[in-house]
């Protein structure tokens, strides 16, 4: 017996004349995420993408890979059968049995696009219902509120049998690359990987910038961020991460500026460096993991002062979320366990004892004038290296 995956997409369906373009983008992303050695063929028809796996590949593993691609609402495993009623009933009900293990009631809906098929839809439904009941004695039919909805589709060349109890939920969202490019400031913490995930989910193509402060931060801390980026890449596909050594800058800020302004000036400098990298790569916005009020540098005053350091649009998808909500997403997307590994990150190297929580731009600019901002930004850019991130 052959099995295929039926992929339904979400928001794309609302697109008008552009829909074809979005669909092709999605199919391209699915192919990239799964790899050529997993997918034998892809077809689209009536808002459904049909995927045939390569011989010998575990269909569940393929579904899991694909389920991370943005733009997909759901994925269903379906059995493919010869268009012979006895075969469909016998083999089809046998195929469905494992998917019915955790349900109590079901209903069958049949559909035939081949009107020459000798049975009509109500007949197929009734016969299939009987076949399933004879395999799974514990089941009952419930046409109003079934636990599982079984479908039999008679197509031109073959028949598909599947149950919505075999559905894997997709991530939703829009295909990556359908909504421009933006640059994520990524640390080793919980928030920034989630912020990257959320913007990519809206179709943004990511690139990332990470700041390190050796020897205050270790090689392992950098590896941790690379590993976080690789987890994000499972959803977004590969991207480039720029690594900016930032120790001298942090020391210069520490040695020249008032202690209570250290963090905010550091963040402004990071934004300026990231903006330059972004512009070089035709990226259209910056993304941060800031959440209003979470720490001293994320009060509404501090955010305004940080924001004033760049002309670029700054996307802050976590701005209105509680830490607990952010953690929930981090757990779901698989970054949490890596994020909480205890390595120092560069934002926590020099933390003022009493950071200012209501900074005024004039005061910060005055403190900042004590260092040669342009020189340090330029130096950071010159020292920057890049790493290509691919999902593992």
């Amino acid at each position, binding site marked *: 017996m052959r099995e295929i995956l039926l992929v339904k997409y979400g928001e794309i369906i609302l697109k008008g004349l552009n829909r074809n373009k979005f669909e092709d983008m999605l199919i391209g992303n699915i192919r990239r995420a799964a790899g050529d050695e997993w997918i034998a063929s892809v077809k689209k028809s009536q808002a459904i993408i049909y995927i045939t796996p390569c011989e010998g590949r575990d269909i569940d593993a393929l579904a899991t890979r694909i389920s991370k691609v943005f733009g997909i609402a759901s994925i269903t495993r379906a059995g493919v059968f010869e268009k012979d009623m006895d075969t469909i009933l016998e083999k089809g009900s046998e195929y469905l049995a494992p998917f019915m293990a955790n349900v109590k009631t079901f209903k069958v809906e049949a559909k035939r696009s081949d009107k020459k098929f000798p049975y009509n839809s109500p007949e197929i439904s009734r016969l299939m219902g009987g076949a399933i009941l004879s395999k799974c004695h514990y089941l009952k039919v419930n046409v109003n509120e079934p636990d599982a909805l079984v479908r039999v589709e008679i197509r031109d060349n073959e028949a598909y049998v599947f149950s919505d109890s075999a559905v894997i939920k997709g991530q939703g969202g829009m295909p990556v690359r359908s909504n421009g490019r933006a640059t994520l400031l990524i640390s080793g913490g919980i928030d920034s990987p989630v912020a990257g995930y959320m913007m990519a989910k809206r179709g943004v193509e990511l690139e990332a910038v990470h700041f390190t402060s*050796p*020897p*205050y*931060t*270790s*090689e392992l801390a950098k590896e941790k961020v690379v590993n976080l980026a690789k987890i994000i890449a499972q959803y977004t596909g590969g991207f480039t991460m720029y690594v900016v050594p930032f120790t001298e800058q942090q020391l210069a800020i520490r040695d020249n500026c008032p202690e209570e302004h250290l963090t905010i000036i550091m963040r402004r400098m990071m934004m300026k460096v990231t903006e330059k990298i972004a512009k070089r790569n035709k990226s259209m916005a910056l993304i941060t993991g800031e959440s209003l009020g979470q720490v001293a540098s994320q009060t509404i005053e501090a955010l305004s002062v940080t924001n004033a350091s760049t002309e670029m649009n700054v996307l802050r998808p976590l701005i209105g979320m509680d830490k607990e909500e952010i953690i929930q997403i981090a757990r779901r997307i698989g970054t949490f366990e890596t994020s909480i590994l*205890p*390595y*120092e990150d560069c934002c*926590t190297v020099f933390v003022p004892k009493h950071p200012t929580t209501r900074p005024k731009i004039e005061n910060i600019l005055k403190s900042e004038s004590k260092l040669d901002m342009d020189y340090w930004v330029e130096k950071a850019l010159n020292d920057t290296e890049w790493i290509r991130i691919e999902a593992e």
Partner: protein
Amino acid sequence: MIYLDNSATTQIAPEVIETMRECMENSWGNPSSTHAVGRAAAKLIKDARKTVADYLKCLPEEIYFTSGGTESDNIAVLGAANIKKGKKIVTTMVEHDAVVKVMTHLENSGFEIVRIAPEADGSIDPHKVIEAVDDKTCLVSVMHVNNETGAIFDIECIANGAKMKNPRVLVHTDAVQSFGHIETNPYKMGVDMMSISSHKIHGPKGVGVLFIKKGINDLKKSVFGGGQEKDIRPGTENTFGIAGFAKAVELIDQNENERIKSLRDKMKTELLALGRVHYNGCENASDYILNLSFEGVRSEVMLNALDSKGICVSSASACAGGKHKSYVLAAMKAKFADNAIRFSFSRYTTENEVDATIAAVKEVIKLFRR
């Protein structure tokens, strides 16, 4: 690359590699097989057993090959923890995790564990250990050399004293950090069991020894299988590892100790002279381990900075935010535990390397001390 983390593991000796290669090519049989191929492997293990026994000055039948220090410790402690003989076990707060965690396990299953605290200099007062032993005590387990500070514990005194108070008590020592560096004669020390490991003396990983004194044959079993190593540690023998370990034992050169001592002294003197540097340890310490705290430079900063200069050392508190502080330094109530760095030497360590390390440390302090 300058490698001063020999307490973690050592570089494998070229002669050991050669011995193991030869063994993999020619003596790959199962020592339990009775045919020629099996007999050749059995002979190799017999020879290795004799080599280790000769070095320890004990009998070959007292040598049990294991998978390393952790397994030796587990077999020894679990074997001797016999609730019928007494539910009390005396140990210290500064043992290796292999002993610490098995003690916690025993505590959870009804044993009373007495953990002796170290003095401020990291030494263990043997009399405190002896004092804790009573007629309910079934086991005393104290390490020979502490892996973080290099402090040498007076096992001879502990073993004699403990047995005077309770002749039935068994004494185990984890000698992983002393074997090959200072004398480890189990009879002289008066211990019943001793754990040693191969990879700390330029041998391969995955092999070690548990010495069990002749006549002790009522240890509780913790590993079950096909009867190898007199059923103390069943499982097909790691012949390559055992051959390599024996070669590493042959290569031990006690004459090196003087040289290592002078390197350690030099580093200790020159670094302490920098000021605001603190020695974590006692006078009676292994020549192979030096633990210093550099006030004003956190452990991980020193570690990362030296790493970037190609110098490998280790920090006692390897993790950020002090989440995983060294329990050894904590038990000593060391004031600068967050600033501790362990340098550990081997016979491959040269004076040039020590000089370069001293210079690098000075530079790091100059740049990053606050």
